[in-house]
């Protein structure tokens, strides 16, 4: 008996045709049985475990439950220090976004959904509040002030917010200081948010029928309302959150390798982590499709011979008839 490695080309040739025995098999019945089994399984799992439905957060809830966080976020939108304000494409030109070496995909594809944070999140919502003379005067005073003065006001107010307290009616109270018209503007914006008006205002700012939640969601993402809930539910990136679901439900297990890279260096501390991980996973995905052509990888089934157990009946039958390969 000769033992020896058969080449991949020979393996390929041997697998092209099969001249051995067949037996009757009912494919349609197999499909029907599989359908019945899977339907029963899905129904049973749905009955036993149901599915999660954690209600969405609203700006109204946020401004009531975390008013200091809301006002802090609003100030950062006003003075352009928020994440959205400094994001870059596709929202604005404030930065060039992420890159990998000379590859600046985020920048190359440009600004497709322009957001001007002081205008969209402060000036326009405040302009929708009718008949408030002092408010209009405050906004006008802020907008006409020199940039240095505006920055001094917002910086001082943001610092004061670090020690703010919440008064009756979920109002924000800060220590006295020179904040210019900023407290008047923020107080009005907070009231608008707490009334529920800001949710609708930000959604339907351009048209009545709207299914694009970009503007309100970016404001919420700039604050802490979503993060607070996400952390409690183990959904943060550093918690392998991409794989997880709210509650104790199984999540998206198939994303394990995608989220793994974010947990290790250099990706865990890189500003370009998202693009780098995307490129790695893109490359590995191409490798998955191309497995038949990758030397080494395509030989793993022969190195880890599970096939001996899968086809053990066939090999036994071959040996008992003395047939060759």
């Amino acid at each position, binding site marked *: *008996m*000769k*033992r*020896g490695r*058969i080449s991949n080309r020979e*393996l*390929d*040739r*041997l*697998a092209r*045709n*099969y001249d*051995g025995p*067949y*037996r009757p098999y009912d*494919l349609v019945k197999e499909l029907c049985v*599989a359908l019945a089994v*899977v*339907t029963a*399984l*899905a129904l049973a*799992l*749905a009955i036993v475990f149901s*599915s999660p*439905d*954690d209600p*969405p*957060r609203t700006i109204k809830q946020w401004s009531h439950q975390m008013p200091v966080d809301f006002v802090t976020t609003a100030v950062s939108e006003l003075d352009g220090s928020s994440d959205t304000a400094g994001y870059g*494409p*596709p929202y604005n030109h404030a930065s060039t976004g*992420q890159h990998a070496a000379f590859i600046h995909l*985020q920048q190359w594809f440009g600004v*497709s959904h322009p957001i001007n944070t002081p205008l969209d999140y402060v000036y326009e919502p405040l302009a929708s509040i009718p008949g408030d003379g002092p408010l209009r005067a405050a906004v006008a005073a802020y907008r006409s002030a020199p940039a240095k003065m505006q920055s001094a006001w917002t910086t001082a107010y943001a610092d004061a917010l670090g020690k703010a307290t919440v008064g009756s009616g979920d109002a924000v109270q800060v220590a006295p200081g020179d904040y210019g018209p900023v407290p008047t503007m923020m107080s009005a914006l907070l009231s608008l948010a707490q009334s529920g008006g800001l949710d609708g205002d930000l959604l339907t700012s351009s048209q009545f029928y709207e*299914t*694009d*939640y*970009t503007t309100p*969601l*970016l404001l*919420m993402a700039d604050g802490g309302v*979503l993060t607070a809930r*996400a952390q409690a539910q183990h*959904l943060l*990136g550093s918690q392998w959150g*991409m794989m997880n679901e709210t509650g104790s439900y199984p999540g998206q297990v*198939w994303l394990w390798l995608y989220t793994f890279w974010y947990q290790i260096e250099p990706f865990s501390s890189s500003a370009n982590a998202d*693009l780098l991980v995307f490129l790695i996973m893109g490359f590995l995905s191409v490798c*998955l*499709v191309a497995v*038949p*052509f990758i030397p080494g990888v395509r030989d793993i*089934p022969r190195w880890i011979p599970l*096939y001996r157990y*899968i*086809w053990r*009946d*066939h090999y036994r039958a*071959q040996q008992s008839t003395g047939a*060759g*390969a």
Partner: protein
Amino acid sequence: MSTHGSAPRSWTARVRDTAVRAMPPERLLPDEQPAYMSSWVYIFGVLTLASLSVIIGSGVILALKGPAWWHYTGVGHFFNSVHLWAVELFFFFMVIHLWAKFFMAAWRGGRARTWASGAVTFLVAIPCAFTGYLSQQNFDSQWIATQAKDGINSTGIGAFFNVLNFGQMYTYHVLLLPVVVVALVVAHVLLVRRHGIVPPLPLADLPKPSP
């Protein structure tokens, strides 16, 4: 050959003849299988197909009543649960099917396209599920959207695929991506039928055929 008499060869006749030559009915729906298919590991392909059917069936019911229905009725929530668990079953069976086909080196004998179409189906099913999670209109979708936007924006794809745009994501989820998944699955199954189920690897310690 045309159906009645000797009309000139039409495109229809040529397409029909090519299709029947490539896939005669006995090959498309055989009532027998090679004797070496003697393992439970062969059931995961059809289980994946069945799971996809349940996903589509429950998805159609959810689509009939619109995306908000499942939040405010028990029946709607139940069909959402069926849809979610069918997705878990789909990936469960599909990945086991992938493991089985890998360890059988099922790409041998001209079956590289079968492997490739299956792998691409897996890769397309992931964004299809992703747009589904984005379409939930609850806290989970708010979080997923605001997190995923950074990854997608970093590649430039965010300029035309806006995960914060519910209308766009919903349309991708209920129409565009399922059409692609189903087309890939059909191609994959037709390739399996065309090339047949891969024969076993030759066992190394069996005598090699003499030259």
